[in-house]
């Protein structure tokens, strides 16, 4: 099989592949920068927590409107916001650190969600229904992901400076500005929106995976935050593209294929990365004169 046949032909021949690629592009552009900030703020596990936290919202949506994706997604968004904002507020105003705060709220949320679902009596795996598949991108979902990406990039650009300062020296920002708390909360809101939209369109694995893994990869190649973001986006794009090709040529399911490629890139970065990679550490080469 020629390179062309392997890498290009599937996308020319099948519309669902083109749509999947479009979804990857949108997801990478929005998710990767958010993932970088999550990693820098030590919130890498928030994606998983959020996947469970949205359950009561989805459950209430289900109770009110049945298996209506829009209702459940809206419910999920509201639940996600509530958990994220509450956790953020508690960690800002009390001594409790963000990760503990988030853990408490998401667990409470999950318990609430499970209770609500079992009250209704049906055993439908709600989350399974709520979580989508990258091979099934219809017009509406693509539109939502694209809008999400645009909004995320714009908002990130706006809160970029206060978010960076708040991440590196929060006390300083507090003394010179009131922007710290809003920037933090807006960031959390962005995280929730990206995650919920990501879940609904693509499932947990892809939504969280394409946020966190590229950030991890970038860490081994750049020392500066702009560089981190660029490399993260590129890694996400490459993983998405290669994963789709892999899923097309083998029988690997699409979501896991993409994440496996990303994980492979990550392992390669751990070994060979120019910033702190293991090989560099073991064989540093001759030291410089000054």
């Amino acid at each position, binding site marked *: 099989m020629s390179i062309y046949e392997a890498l290009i032909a599937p996308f020319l021949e*099948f519309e669902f592949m083109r749509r999947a690629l479009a979804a990857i592009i949108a997801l990478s552009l929005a998710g990767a920068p958010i993932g970088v900030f999550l990693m820098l703020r030590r919130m890498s596990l928030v994606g998983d927590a959020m996947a469970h936290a949205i359950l009561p919202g989805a459950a209430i949506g289900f109770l009110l409107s049945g298996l209506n994706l829009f209702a459940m997604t809206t419910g999920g968004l509201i639940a996600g916001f509530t958990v994220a904002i509450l956790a953020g507020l508690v960690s800002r105003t009390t001594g409790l650190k963000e990760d503990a705060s988030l853990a408490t709220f998401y667990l409470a949320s999950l318990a609430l969600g499970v209770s609500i679902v*079992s009250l209704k009596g049906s*055993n439908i795996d709600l989350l399974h229904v709520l979580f*989508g598949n990258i091979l099934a991108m219809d017009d509406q979902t693509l539109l939502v992901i694209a809008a999400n990406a645009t909004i995320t990039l714009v908002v990130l650009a706006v809160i970029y400076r206060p978010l960076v300062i708040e991440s590196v020296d929060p006390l300083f920002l507090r003394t010179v500005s009131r922007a710290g708390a809003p920037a933090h909360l807006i960031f959390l809101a962005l995280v929730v929106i990206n995650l919920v939209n990501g879940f609904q369109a693509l499932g947990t694995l892809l939504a969280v995976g394409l946020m966190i893994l590229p950030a991890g990869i970038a860490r081994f190649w750049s020392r500066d935050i702009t560089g981190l973001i660029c490399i993260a986006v590129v890694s996400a794009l490459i993983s998405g593209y290669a994963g*789709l090709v892999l899923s097309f040529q083998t029988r690997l*399911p699409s979501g896991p294929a993409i994440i496996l490629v990303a994980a492979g890139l990550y392992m390669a970065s751990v070994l060979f990365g120019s910033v702190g990679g293991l090989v560099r550490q073991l064989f540093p080469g001759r030291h410089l004169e000054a």
Partner: protein
Amino acid sequence: MDGFRAALVVLAMAFGAAPLHATERLNVVASFSILADFVRNIGGDRVNVTSLVGPNGDVHVYTPPPQDAKIVAAAQLVVINGLGLEGWLPRLLQSSGSKAVVVTASNGVDPLGRGSEADPHAWQSVANAKIYVRNIRDALVRADVADADYFRQNAERYLAELDALDREVRDEVAKIPPERRKVISTHRAFGYFEKAYGIAFIAPLGVSTETEPSARDVAAIITQVKKDRIPAIFLENISDERLVRRIAEETGAKLGGTLFSDSLTGEKGPAPTYIAMVRHNIKALTSALGP
């Protein structure tokens, strides 16, 4: 005088027999809604039927809550499908300590596939449904000998209805031009239907509702639908419909209605009983595939 004595005797018999009929109803638990429907049709008002997996539920991935153990413990008869459908059941039976008799409704059915690969949806063929009904009837009779005749009569009547249903399905299928007797469905649950009635079901996902397709699988389906000119795509009341919609869009195939395979709907839905379910399915098929 004779008339009076005769009346007394009849009365005595009536009163004597009454206790038999006034005995408690048989507690029967069925694993899911389709089996429960069968039991109700045969058992009538002599049985209390409870279905563990309710309407619109997913019997493949059911996790029984604690109340189920109580329900099972109180049952005298448990009706299961078998053929690997209820992976969650053995543990429930064990932990409930139930003394109930367990009857496998699919005994005697010629299964598609072997062992863990077996397709459990045998009820999709009406002929198999009749086997189920006979098994259930026999089990009810053994459990409640006093009502044996009652059960047998009900079963007789119901089997006749099933016969009529089977003929109905075959007549409808005959109306579909042979080259159009193929559909895509998301759930590989219609193997027995296919074997019995000749409509080919091609599915993008595996037997249970959980496996995720690869891009290659999806591409293969699309290619096949286009190549074989498969006319219709059907949804199923449990799994991810968006993928099926995408395939329909890309192939130009017609999006059929919903086919019900693994459970009945509630009272208000289109498939509240087994017979209604089969009728609904065949109507949906003919309207999508018809000439």
